[in-house]
């Protein structure tokens, strides 16, 4: 028997015949709905899948997507990017971070601007790459600017675990990890400024699934139980998303609000207990974390526990880090887009003053943001 190849992991999940079959099934179920349903795909990865594979074009008009705030790069407020910029500009510092965090502008510019001015900024595939950088640069301070949801948090914890066990003296952390369920609650509970009500429009959630690989599907149980909002935890291929939508509409038609897992090949109810223990060991919740486009969200951020303060760049560089509040751009309507009150094209600066190469708001920042995906793929119908 031949071994499993990489392509086996996605080939079937992009099968045109399977996608078309789901298209038919969804159309038949959606007809019975008799109303429009708003489905929020919380995770930027799902937004990307929906736009890249043109799934909105395959769905009936009464299925509407609200593109959620689940893109770790997009939601990073300027205050935190200014921290990264400031740290990068310190002498003897090498700042490491993940992927397109490098492009996001703060109030003085992005990390790639800092690099153009002489700062040593590098991106890594895995936080573990920091070990090599630290070994090769013993006289430098390596600061890992850690970002991401539950998916990437265990990797930061694992790096700290190694740093402590090997007594490595020159790796430090600036923690910006955030958690998904809290911001989902915020989207439902928060008072909308324009209509002064709690009128949220979310009928169902597509649950971020790589988050659930770590944390299990259990973290979403509150939504069907407490809010009566169905959640389907879905994979990231087009077939996954189509199947999840089908499962959701069936729930509506059958009058259920359940927590279901579509992405069974990776997600369990309990998740990865070892990773959860590692997170628990090193991190604790912060009271408030500011999300770009969303404002302060209670209990949604993590920090290193006090016992690990010697590794915390935010503690070590307290004197030089800026703490001024910075408002989101006043023309930007990212908050409304994330809540489902507006679509990207309805923003007055979409595609003109706000573009992927010069983003004003959170949704344009990373390729996983709703505005960036609309701009890039065109949302053609």
């Amino acid at each position, binding site marked *: 028997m031949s071994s499993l190849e990489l392509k086996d992991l996605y080939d079937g999940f992009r099968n045109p015949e399977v996608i078309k079959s789901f298209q038919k099934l969804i159309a038949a179920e959606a007809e019975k709905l008799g109303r429009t349903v708003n489905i929020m795909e919380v995770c930027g990865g799902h937004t990307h899948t929906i736009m890249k594979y*043109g799934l909105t074009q*395959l769905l009936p008009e009464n299925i509407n997507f609200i593109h959620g705030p689940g893109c770790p790069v997009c939601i990073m407020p300027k205050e935190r990017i200014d921290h990264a910029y400031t740290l990068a500009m310190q002498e003897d510092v090498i700042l490491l971070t993940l992927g397109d965090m490098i492009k996001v502008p703060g109030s003085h510019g992005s990390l790639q601007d800092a690099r*153009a001015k002489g700062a040593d900024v590098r991106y890594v595939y895995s936080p573990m790459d920091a070990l090599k950088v630290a070994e090769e640069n013993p006289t430098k301070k390596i600061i890992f600017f850690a970002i991401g949801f539950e998916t990437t948090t265990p990797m930061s914890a694992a790096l700290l675990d190694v740093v402590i066990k090997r007594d490595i003296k020159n790796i430090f952390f600036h923690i910006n990890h955030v958690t998904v369920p809290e911001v989902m609650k915020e989207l439902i509970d928060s008072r909308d400024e324009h209509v002064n009500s709690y009128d949220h429009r979310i009928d169902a959630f597509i649950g971020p699934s790589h988050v659930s690989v770590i944390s299990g599907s259990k973290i979403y149980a509150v939504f069907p139980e407490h809010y009566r909002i169905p959640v389907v935890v879905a994979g990231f291929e087009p077939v996954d998303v189509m199947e999840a939508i089908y499962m959701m509409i069936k729930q509506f038609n059958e009058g259920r609000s359940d927590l279901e897992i579509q992405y069974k090949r990776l997600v369990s109810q309990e998740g990865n207990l070892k990773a959860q223990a590692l997170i628990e060991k090193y991190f604790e919740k912060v009271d408030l974390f500011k999300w770009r486009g969303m404002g302060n969200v209670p209990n949604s951020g993590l920090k290193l526990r006090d016992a690990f303060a010697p590794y915390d760049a935010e503690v070590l560089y307290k004197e030089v880090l800026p703490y001024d509040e910075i408002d989101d751009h006043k023309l930007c309507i990212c908050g409304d887009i994330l809540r489902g009150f507006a679509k990207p094209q309805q923003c007055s600066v979409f595609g003109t003053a706000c573009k992927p*190469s010069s983003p004003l708001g959170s949704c344009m920042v990373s390729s996983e943001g709703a505005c960036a995906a609309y701009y890039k*793929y065109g949302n053609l119908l």
Partner: protein
Amino acid sequence: MTKNIVLAQGNGGEENAELISKIFYKHFKNEILEKSEDAAIIDGGRLAFTTDSFTVSPIFFDGGDIGKLSICGTCNDLAMMGAKPTYMTCAVIVEEGFSVEELEKIVRSMKKELEINGAVIVCGDTKVVPRGSVDKIFINTTGVGVVQKSGISSNSVSEEDVIIVSNEIGKHGATIFANREGMEFSSNLQSDCTSLWPLVEKLLSEGIAITAMRDATRGGVAAVLNEWAKQSKVCIEVNEETIPVSDEVRGICEILGFEAYNLANEGTFVLAIKRSDAQRAVEVLKTFEEGSKASIIASVTHQHDGRVLLLSPWGSKRFMDLPTGELLPRIC
């Protein structure tokens, strides 16, 4: 534009184009330059003329090295204008401490590639700079070619043409990424770095009606198609299924979140061919190993002038956009 040069401005995409037009074109402005072709057509249409500088890390990679690249790159730009590469220059800036053995290895691979193109280096320059002033070695080559067929231009793509790619796309970019980052795959992934003149010569000798050709280097196939769509004011509609991509390249793209059509090629080119000659062009290309996966990938319409559309096998469509920024791996 930013105050300081950022890496994204060298990506072959939007920022790169902005830098060129706002700084270089602004001051150097002239009719020939503004045609923005792979090589300038001079001397009343008789000669093609082009230059390219090469810096690559690592300098030796799977499927080639900076020497091979420096000849292929410039000769391919000439070939894309239907010109046979003839005379070339070679300027080298080399860092103090660089291994002489490696330098000779690079020059030997340049010689081998010159022979394939039937071109000769007729003058050159060597600079040695203190350690740290350059990254090991930078090579510039300039080439002159004799135009064999005139009128090939990226400004004249029309609805009568179809679009062909000469081989599987994205191999050079994927290989360099994998080699640079020390990613180890059990695969045969190699750069496609190769000289294209022999393929072009055969197409010309078979009398294929070529409208435009361009080697899909930085910015990949997406950059070429977007430039053509803009320059010729047409819409290019690409059938996603027909784009040839190897499993290895697809795999790297899956892991890192890239699109194969944004990755650089160094021996794969895009052709606009009159529809009636398209099948024959593919057959000619397929007689070469470097063209064995040649495929018709797109038609030309006026659906969205100036844009490239990507059609999925399940009936949805989206834009195939110009790459922006540096290619950065996704986060999760």
